[in-house]
């Protein structure tokens, strides 16, 4: 590894960890997620107590006790944390990246830096590396605090839970990287930091809010006219044929399946939705294999048995791929733009 890259990465790492901006957002993320985890832990303990009571009732062969719910998992607590990461992680990623290059141009320090025996790519790679390490420390700290709170609340995660929490942290890190790399790209191509920030925020709104709305509208248009219910077609006292009703149900299911598939395909462009899907796959796997935006799936609810890994990957692979590819694309474009930057 080139020495120049490490020098730049070291400076960037220290700059990020000592910047007020980073520390403020990180403190907020830590505080809010800690409160969320604490609340989630209390809910978990209540659910666990309820589960134990149901078990005891079932053991007593009480015929009116009803079915026993699945045992609750401590991982469900992390679904709350994912909500906070969507908000604060996005802000943190953007805050870390929007002036990474533009500030160097504004302060004229880029030319002074480039006068050193260092390749241009070492500068942008070093900046990205230093920032990613700072981000990793932030997320590891947040997860460590969350585990400490769980232990404090008397919840001891299993080895499987620990593995899942680790994957959750990695996925959360990749999600934050999406917006960090987007901000870095804008910082490289924008004239100044202000423009970089505004452009990044506009793209963030498009990806997180406009894409899902467009996906819904486009899916509606592509799916065409929904089948007409035999009930609304029937007039007066004429009876409805059971066969017609069954056919209608089948057509309606197919209609919603098509619509759901199309909106899911469009939603692949939204890092927020991809992250939520991934987080759900980790914290509540059964929920992750149900179809999004499909009322039939909603009514049916998640499957009673926990899906196996193959089934789970089948449901989320596109989201996982998109979540991983997007920061790579943003960084690649930022890299190419930086290499061509006119430094006169």
């Amino acid at each position, binding site marked *: 590894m080139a*020495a*120049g890259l490490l*020098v730049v990465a070291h*400076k960037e790492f220290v*700059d990020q960890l000592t910047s007020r901006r980073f520390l403020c957002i990180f403190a907020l993320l830590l505080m809010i997620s800690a409160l969320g985890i604490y609340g989630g832990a209390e809910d978990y303990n209540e659910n666990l107590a309820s589960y134990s009571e149901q078990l005891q009732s079932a053991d007593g062969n009480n015929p009116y006790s009803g079915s026993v719910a699945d045992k609750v998992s401590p991982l469900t607590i992390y679904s709350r944390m994912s909500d906070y990461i969507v908000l604060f992680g996005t802000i943190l990623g953007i805050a870390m990246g929007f002036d990474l290059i533009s500030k160097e141009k504004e*302060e*004229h*320090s*880029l*030319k*002074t*830096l*480039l*006068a*050193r*025996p*260092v*390749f241009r790519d070492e500068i942008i790679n070093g900046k990205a590396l230093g920032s990613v390490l700072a981000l990793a420390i932030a997320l590891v700290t947040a997860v460590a605090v969350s585990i400490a709170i769980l232990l404090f609340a008397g919840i001891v995660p299993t080895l499987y839970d620990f593995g899942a929490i680790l994957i959750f942290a990695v996925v959360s890190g990749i999600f934050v990287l999406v917006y960090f790399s987007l901000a870095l790209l804008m910082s490289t191509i924008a004239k100044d930091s202000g423009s970089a920030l505004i452009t990044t925020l506009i793209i963030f709104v498009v990806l997180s809010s406009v894409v899902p709305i467009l996906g819904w509208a486009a899916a509606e248009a592509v799916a065409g006219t929904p089948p007409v219910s035999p009930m609304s077609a029937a007039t007066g006292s004429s009876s409805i044929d059971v066969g017609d009703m069954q056919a209608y149900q089948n057509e309606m299911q197919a209609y919603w399946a098509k619509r759901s598939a199309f909106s899911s395909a469009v939603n692949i462009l939204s890092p927020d939705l991809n992250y939520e899907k991934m987080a759900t796959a980790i914290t509540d796997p059964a929920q992750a294999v149900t179809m999004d935006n499909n009322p039939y799936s909603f009514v049916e609810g998640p499957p009673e048995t926990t899906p196996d890994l193959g089934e789970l990957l089948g449901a989320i692979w596109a989201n996982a791929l998109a979540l991983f590819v997007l920061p790579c694309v943003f960084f690649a474009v930022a890299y190419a733009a930086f290499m061509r930057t006119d*430094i*006169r």
Partner: protein
Amino acid sequence: MIRTEHLTKDYNGRHAVDDLTMEIDRGEIFGFLGPNGAGKSTTILMLVGMIEPTAGQCFIDGIEVAHNPLKVKDIIGYLPEDVGFYGNMTAEQNLDYYARFYPMAASERSKRIADLLELVHLDGVTQKAGEYSRGMKQRLGLAQALINDPKVLFMDEPTANLDPEGVREYRDLIAHLSDEGKTILVSSHILSEVREVCKTVGLLVQGRLVAKGTIEDVARTLTPTEDDLMQIVLETEEPLPWIEDPAIVSLETDGNRAVIRATSDIRSRIVATLTGQGVHVQEISVCTPDIEDVFMSIYRR
């Protein structure tokens, strides 16, 4: 030490630097003169390996720059015109960051930084660079350019933002660095500044090197001449007699003063003739055009 061969840089189809061929010897203080937009900074950026030429080559200490930019950067120092630093760091921290790109031990780095801060009178300054005045930044710029004890130093408009005291110190520093054997290229559009420190100059106009040599050589080269005649001004104590010499083309006399236009420098012959006639010469000189005027006329083109 510095050599360019048909160096050319195009921007949007326009020659910013056009077929520049020149050579600067080791230990020389060379002034790069020219109006704004003449291509001085672009030339320096190519010489320091920050931009690649469209055509031609440049060499620093025999190293071809475009193919070995890092090797070149190891042995050069560069003070950009608009030098900038990290505002959240002190002068020492800024210099330490830059020094880490060179193969220097921590103790050597520390000593070098302390020496340089003392040299530019920023030792003991605890302010962050973001709070510096423009003059202080310029002085820190000089220090960063010397962090690796370079063989060759490029300075783009080095006295911009410096107060008179700072300018004087800068001149002393240049002289000191020259004594150490460093080759220095100073780019400026201010003739008086270049004249103070540089032994030789090159005049760049619209990307082309129009003249190179000492200031006087360049001025003479650029002076518009009428049939290459020399103008001699003469003053005597007694009224002037008629002067005859085959080299004289015209002679205008006014009492004891004359303006002679001749094909060569005949001052010694005139003095001998007049002395022989018992006329005492008070002053005799070749009339040279004002250098500032000559350069200004080029700048205005």
